[in-house]
């Protein structure tokens, strides 16, 4: 190394004396990335299957991946992180028609809607309260000093103690607050919601809009209702598919964009279908668990 003069020496020393914030917990970061990878791989798989004649329901494929291929031949690959991952992470999945309420270690309650998944590390509530969500869930968060964070692939939701709904599905991202204060952020923006406010991001147009939670008993699915406000028929059918475990087939793709507005009681499938049929002025034919729309 060449010799440095006084000034260069000073710069040399000073440039190392910087206080950077601590790096986040690596295991937790991997858990989130792992989820993103699953989502990404899933999206690609679905794109490939789009034209296949048999329509699988998305959510039966999205199962927790607890078994990885472990290569023993090469000592350089450490098996520990993988095993550690499955031992240290809790995964809760709901299939179609499922509706599941559970307690988190800090006393918070989560209710998962059909076809949803949450993942959280077992040391939840010791130094963090953070989980990953794919799908839709209603949260009743206990007040606490540690911020409660929900990671989705569209954004992050942070609260201290509130009740609110998060919907993070392929066709859109929505957060609505019943009580308390909720902060939603992605890598460029951050919005704070309070009681009665809802954030809705259209997956296609990337628009952000703050709306009022205008109907009583939000969110609808927790109260056995489905509420639609100029919602495309494809989204409506997605909700019905998940609630009742059926599959829709469209004979005319133009129907995807048909707009539906109304409140539907979800106690009984036939009532639901007649209501939709009436609202859209199209006929539904039901055969086994496949429903065809003309």
């Amino acid at each position: 190394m060449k010799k440095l003069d006084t000034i260069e020496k000073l710069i040399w020393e000073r440039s190392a004396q910087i206080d950077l914030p601590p790096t986040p917990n690596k295991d937790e970061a991997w858990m989130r990335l792992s989820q993103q990878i699953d989502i990404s791989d899933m999206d690609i798989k679905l794109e490939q299957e789009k034209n296949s004649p048999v329509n699988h329901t998305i959510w039966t494929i999205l199962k927790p991946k607890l078994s990885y291929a472990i290569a023993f031949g090469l000592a350089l690959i450490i098996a520990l992180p993988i095993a550690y991952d499955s031992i240290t992470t809790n995964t809760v999945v709901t299939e179609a028609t499922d509706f599941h309420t559970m307690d988190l270690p800090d006393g918070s309650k989560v209710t998962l809607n059909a076809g949803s998944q949450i993942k959280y590390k077992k040391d939840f509530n010791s130094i963090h309260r953070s989980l990953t969500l794919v799908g839709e869930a209603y949260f009743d968060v206990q007040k606490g000093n540690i911020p409660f964070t929900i990671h989705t692939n569209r954004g992050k939701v942070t609260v201290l103690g509130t009740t609110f709904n998060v919907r993070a599905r392929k066709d859109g991202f929505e957060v609505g607050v019943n009580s308390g204060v909720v902060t939603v952020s992605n890598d460029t923006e951050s919005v704070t919601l309070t009681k009665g406010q809802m954030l809705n991001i259209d997956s296609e147009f990337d628009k952000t809009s703050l709306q009022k939670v205008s109907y009583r008993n939000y969110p609808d699915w927790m109260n056995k209702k489905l509420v639609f406000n100029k919602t495309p028929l494809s989204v409506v059918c997605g909700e019905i598919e998940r609630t009742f475990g059926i599959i829709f087939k469209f004979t005319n793709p133009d129907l995807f964009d048909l707009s539906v507005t109304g409140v539907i009681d979800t106690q009984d499938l036939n009532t639901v279908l007649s209501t939709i049929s009436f609202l859209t002025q199209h006929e539904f034919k039901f055969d086994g668990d496949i429903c065809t729309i003309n």
Partner: protein
Amino acid sequence: MREQEQLLLQQVKNSDKSAFQQLFSNFYDTLYRFVIYRIKDADLADDITQETFLRIWKTRKNLQPNKSFFSLIARISTNLCYDHFRHMEVRYRHEELIPEYGKSHFDDPELINQANILQEEIQSIVNDQLPDKCRSIFILSRIEGKTNPEIAELLDLSVRTVENQIYRALKVLKKNLKNYL
């Protein structure tokens, strides 16, 4: 070290997720610090770091195991930082973003102020004035505390090149810090 890295990259290329986890484990901390040195926002740095690794996975078929992995993720994350700044329309980043950290070792407020200003100036010069490779090398040296041979191996360069780049960085810093010293 390089052989292990090459092996992992080849496995990731073949969609081996456990190899990818190992790669993540090896590089996460360093990349995070690399990003936050420029971005200064913890949440944003976290997002960019995650996004970088996600992109690696998504384009794993194009991985070249014989090329430096750190160079690749440094480049991707730097581009993501630029994208963010373009989106925010921020021209002078170091003025806009107030650092969340900056605890000083001194008690004298006057000294604290001076030390912080100098530190910030160093940071902004490194971020704005150094070419990418030079910047990577300087940060790996001063922030990560890596030796020149270590940096050379990590970036697939000669030790002589590493040394030259560090001197180059110091020259640029010295020139730009004339008013502060």
